């Protein structure tokens, strides 16, 4: 009697385990979350200039696409065009900007000296680079470091955009 009972139990146990082992593997599932959606499309790029009140003002340029941080800063260096805002960055024929992205900061190598920009001009660059970075999916807490052509302590400062502090 006892052996019959225990044999039944053992058989049941073994078959359950066998089914469990055989049945494991890749099974169908429902819809599940898999992280943040990609971003980076936009009808244009946002640049920052200075208005008559000496305040930073965003200016939307319809470029059809967002473009990179480098594209945005290059476009900033090329000036405001004939709009009612001005730039506090000296005009330069070379607008190439080299961008290196680190975990907490993006580093811009601009074709400028510290004398070519006012503090307001620096904010223009920082805000433009930061906005492009955020629109491309980067973190809003990312800081910006501007490396000038000639050595200056200002090259070491990690900056934030005053509009989004």
């Amino acid at each position, binding site marked *: *009697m*006892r*052996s*019959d009972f225990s*044999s039944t139990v*053992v058989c049941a*146990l*073994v078959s359950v*385990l*066998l089914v*469990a*082992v055989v049945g*494991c*593997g*890749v*099974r*169908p*599932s*429902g*819809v*599940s*979350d*898999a*992280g*943040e*959606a*990609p*971003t*980076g*499309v*936009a*009808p244009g790029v*946002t640049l920052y200039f200075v208005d008559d009140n000496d305040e930073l003002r*965003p200016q939307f340029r319809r470029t*059809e*696409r*967002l*473009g*990179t941080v480098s*594209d945005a800063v290059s476009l900033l260096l090329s000036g405001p065009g004939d709009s009612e805002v001005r730039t506090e960055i000296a005009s330069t024929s070379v607008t190439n900007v080299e961008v290196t992205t680190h975990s907490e900061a993006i580093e811009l190598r601009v074709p400028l000296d510290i004398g070519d920009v006012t503090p307001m001009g620096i904010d223009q660059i920082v805000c433009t680079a930061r*906005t492009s970075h*955020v*629109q*491309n*999916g980067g973190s*809003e807490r990312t800081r910006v470091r501007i490396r000038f052509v000639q050595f200056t302590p200002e090259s070491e400062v990690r900056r934030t955009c005053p509009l*989004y502090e």
Partner: protein
Amino acid sequence: MGRWWPRGLRPRLLAGFALVTVLGSLAATWAITESAGEALVASNQRRISETVSGQIGAVTHEVSHPPDQAALDRLRDSVGTDTLVVFEDLRSVDGTETDLITDGLREAVRAGDRVVTQRVVDADRPWLLVGAPVMITAPDGERTPSGIEVYTVRDLSAVQEEVDALVRAAAVAGAAVLLLATLLALFTARGVLRPVRELRDTARRLAAGDLDARTEPQGVDELAELTVTINEMAESVQGSMESMERMRADARRFAADVSHELRTPLSTLTAVTEVLAASTEDMAEDARESARMAISETQRLVRLVEDLMEVSRFDAGSARLREEEVDMVSAVRDTLRARDRLDQVEIHAPEELPVRVDRRRLDVIVANLVGNALRHGEPPVRVSVFADRTHVNLVVTDGGPGLSEHVVPHVFDRFFKADAARTRTPGSGLGLAIALENARLHDGDLTAGNGDDGGARFVLRLPRASGDIDPGRERGVRG
């Protein structure tokens, strides 16, 4: 116990070990493959969705908004084959597996701002569906759907194979463990069974009478305790047996000593009574009666002491057999004639029946049997002597009421009295016991029972002298 359930200790241990191992390894295999498989699938899924997400994110800044067909194609190319990119009425599709994309996934992509995944199985192949809405991020960080949806289908067969390999490896490991467990079970069974077998052998030897048998206890487990206990038991049994044997020997020696010590004063007493007997003529009537009683009681005492000494000799094993060629029939007649009993007994016997016996002991046996029949039974007392193939038989019957049932087993006991009230009989109470000892000394036997006509029947069986017995050989009973 069931029919198929193993009975021996070894198969039971083996079965137990195997069962535990199988269950244990199955459980472990199941748990490991289940969780490892899940982790494997999950990590692959995460890797795939992150890759897809990254591939999309890497090209979005080049994608115009609102996108045209070329922009959608650009996005689709960046993700790879089996990809579908949708924007409003525009579609860009590549590969055939995009049919697998479910409505549920589409709804989740349209409604949310997160990448979603779903596993499906199609034609026994597992697939991962990844759906990603592409977002527009405003300068202040706020995200809104761009309307572009990217769907892609990825093959999970490689993961399935990895999981299968995991199960196989676990199964192989389980089989190896089972083998190991079997060896271990055999080893353990041996370790348990060897002491059990030794104990069994020891117990057998003890049962067969070898009280010196012991088992050396090994280790400190329960079996060792059992061994120690059995050894102690054997020790105590041996001690009891030795002390009993000693006490019996002491009792025998005491009886022998007593009878021996009584003999010397009895000889003197016998001499005195003989003188007394010679002078009874001169006595008064009552004094003569007393003297006769003294004489007869003294003679009885002498017989008793002689019987006691004979019994002591049997007990001590010092009784010796002096065999010689004797004619059984004439020996019986001689015995009866010597005791004046010839006319009281009917003898049925052949002319002669030669046999090798101790003449004196045969005389004692016949005298005791006939005396017993005459004393306690009633006439006619018959003595028959006849031979069969192996034995010479001497049967003594009487015409009395026979032996009652409770008497038969004790009739050869020493000092046994069938009638408790009749304490004073002429016999010593040792006669039949001595007769039996004498019969056994001859390798024969003496039995008591009742005849067909109801009288007591005593049968003496002595082996016929065979050629292999040396003439004049001396045999002793009890070593």
